[in-house]
């Protein structure tokens, strides 16, 4: 009887012990330079991942402890990037953004650019958000969050999008309450009338939901200084460096950043790039950054008309600012921790222990590069960020050069 118990115990031990013997980590990223602005890290460190979470960030983690080891020497190891300004409510409708051809599919552009989270900038409103949720958000591998448009149908173009009666505070708030994790704020975008009603309603929604207002400034009749004055600390202003015709540029006749804009920044309003197809011009960006007017976030304004133009992708925009003199950790911060804070999702955008393992391995290429703005002018530079490998929730989603792959042996 004792023998039987002994053998049973040995048997049980045999079954139970492999997990204890087995490696401690699923994945170890070794030898890269970790840049994690939230945690003030910019130094060579190893990052270990277990069960989809960041488990350890320290120097010289033993490779024996991991099932898989990535050699990240020469690469930056950043939190997965967050694009705070996209239009990804793609669908079959012609000539519009909401459920239409003007939007693009998120997974087509995210991982290959180091992005793990995209925020849709109000392509949907309270009427169309459920469709956006089932057809795009739930079907995508990228984490999709959204600002909800005050226009009920979202970006369906004129006149529907400007219909005041379809801007309903209660209905908008209800949808936000139903999806508190996914919807990160309210958006006001395209309105050509003189009424303050759309803006005020959007702001009211944002206030009641305790979330930021995202202002996409195609509001030609509403003066810039008044808009900025009404906006609260934590609200977001996009298309910052655009020489657009439907609002005042942010620089005065002498190329100086407007006092009202400086005041707004001091008050705590965030400024997003929102490059898009028509909203980023070096003639504004260059003088602005020379006056230390850097963006808080690197939003792309990704859509059908920006994807193949000067914008291209978020790393291309980040490279523009890198070449304009913004330092590397600041550029990464504007693509990780800053946007996470702006959308009140402080669980994202960093590599703290226990955080979801969204990681981007980025190469800083040296060479001669050209960067095109929305006006068809270029800046030449010597640095270009390139996405080598992207991890979301511990899983490898993009691997440009097969860093994680086993070598082929003939």
């Amino acid at each position, binding site marked *: 009887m004792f023998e039987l118990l002994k053998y049973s115990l040995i048997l049980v031990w045999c079954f139970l012990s492999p997990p204890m013997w087995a490696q401690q980590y699923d994945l170890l990223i070794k030898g890269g330079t970790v840049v994690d602005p939230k945690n003030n890290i910019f130094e060579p460190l190893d990052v270990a991942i277990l069960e989809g979470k960041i488990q350890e960030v320290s120097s010289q983690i033993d490779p024996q402890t991991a099932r898989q080891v990535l050699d990240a020497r020469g690469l930056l190891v950043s939190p997965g990037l967050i694009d705070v300004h996209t239009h990804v409510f*793609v*669908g*079959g409708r*012609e000539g519009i953004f909401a*459920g239409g*051809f003007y939007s*693009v*599919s998120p*997974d*087509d*552009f995210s*991982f*290959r650019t180091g992005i793990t989270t995209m925020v849709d900038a109000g392509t949907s409103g309270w009427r169309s958000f459920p469709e956006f949720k*089932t*057809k*795009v958000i739930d*079907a995508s591998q990228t984490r999709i969050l959204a600002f909800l448009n005050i226009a009920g149908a979202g970006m369906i173009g004129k006149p529907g999008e400007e219909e005041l009666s379809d801007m309903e505070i209660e209905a908008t708030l209800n949808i936000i309450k139903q999806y508190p994790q996914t919807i990160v704020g309210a958006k006001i975008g395209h309105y050509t009338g003189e009424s303050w009603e759309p803006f005020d309603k959007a702001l009211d929604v944002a206030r009641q939901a305790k979330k930021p207002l995202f202002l996409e400034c195609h509001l030609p009749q509403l003066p810039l200084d008044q808009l900025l004055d009404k906006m609260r600390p934590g609200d977001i202003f996009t298309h910052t460096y655009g020489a657009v015709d439907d609002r005042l*540029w942010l*620089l*005065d*006749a*002498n*190329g100086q950043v407007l006092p009202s804009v400086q005041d707004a920044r001091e008050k705590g309003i965030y400024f997003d790039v929102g490059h898009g197809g028509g909203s980023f011009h*070096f*003639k504004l960006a*260059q003088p602005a950054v020379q006056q230390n007017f850097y963006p808080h976030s690197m939003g792309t304004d990704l859509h*059908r008309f920006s*994807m*193949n133009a*000067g914008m*291209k992708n978020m790393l291309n925009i980040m490279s523009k600012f890198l070449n304009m003199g913004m330092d590397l950790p600041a550029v990464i911060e504007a693509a990780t921790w800053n946007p996470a804070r702006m959308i009140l999702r402080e669980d994202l955008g960093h590599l703290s222990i226990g955080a979801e393992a969204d990681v981007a391995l980025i190469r800083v290429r040296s060479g*001669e*590069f*050209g*960067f*095109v*703005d929305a*006006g*068809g*002018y*270029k*800046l*030449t530079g010597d640095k270009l960020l390139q996405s080598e490998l992207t991890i979301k929730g511990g899983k490898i*989603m*993009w*691997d*440009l*050069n*097969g*860093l994680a*792959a*086993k*070598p*082929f042996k*003939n």
Partner: protein
Amino acid sequence: MTRILSLTLFLWCTLLVQGQEYDVVIKGGQVIDPKNNLNELLDVAVKDGKVAAVAANIPVSNATTVIQAQGLYVTPGLIDMHTHVFQGTDVDSYLANGLGSLPPDGFTFRAGVTTVVDAGTSGWRNFRQFKHQTIDQAQTRVLAFISIVGAGMYGRLEAQNLNDMDPVLTAFMIDLYSEHIVGVKKHHYRGDNFTPVERAVEAGNMAGVPVMVDFGEHDPMLSIKTLFLEKLRPGDIFTHTYSYTNNRETVVDENNQVKPFIFQAQKRGIIFDVGHGGGSFIWHQVVPSIKQGFLPDVISTDLHFWSMNAGMKDMTNLLSKFLNLGMTMEQVIGRSTWEPAQVIQRPQLGHLSPGAEADIAVFRLHEGDFGFMDARGRMMKGTQKLETELTLRAGKVVWDLNGLSVPAWDTEPLKY
């Protein structure tokens, strides 16, 4: 007075016309145009959306845009003969009007591609929806094989339905949309017979177009020798050439030898297409094939949701794989321009002959340390990689990676 004014106006107009002899001149690149046997340093001039001239030392004084292409390759815009671009939001569908298909423009121009051919995502029942939804909306030129299955590539269930494989209606649809439809596709049939192939060939015969065959999944496995030598016609296409999966006979045998009848089939005129995709490009099949002289006739991506972020990535990555296996630039470009143009019976595409639509790609060939993955996640090292610098579609710049076609920002008049 009026006459003088008219004369002045006339002269001025003439000057204006002379002043814009060319819209674009691409200077000093290595032009590779396999159809015209060109592989040399030449300039390419574009006017009104067409190739106007390919010659040495084209004067640039009369060109609106001059692109300096020294050190770069200038080729016809690439044709990707195997893609799935019938994008939509039917969440029950696999590819047809589904999320598995991709809107083409985000993948084409940045990879030098100006024409994609959809590989049977739609069938005669839903081709018109595809046309409305993708073909008419895309900037990329979209052509299509239509599936022999009326429902197209909706799901594997639908692909088994012999009752929905109607050669007559398929041929009718091709006739109706002969501008866009280039052939018939057979795919994903699990039966133990050649019936879908026969129906596709029947439709192909009626419409005068080639058939593309994705020949897997038959249970039990069917012979590709029979397929190549008895069932298909010269000019028909075998895609997923380098796959290695269950119920799919491979081109390379277990001793790493290309099966002799493969060469016979290629000689007979069967077109071997890469169709990389998410599961159909295995180094164990590719490497012996290339070493033993069995080269693909057409290099294509099989672009869809499950290949875009995997080993495939895009057309330039795929072409780079073949360059690193020892194929020449000329061979690789030929198999992605003039060869597919001939296979799909579109001789007006895939070359830079004067008068042709100005679809042009400009590539940089990087030297360095690169890795390339196959569909099983095995990596091979390489030293060469193509990058798309610039793409023109019908004479218009649709991709410009480094701003080769635009002026420096500080030349813009500053007016705030």
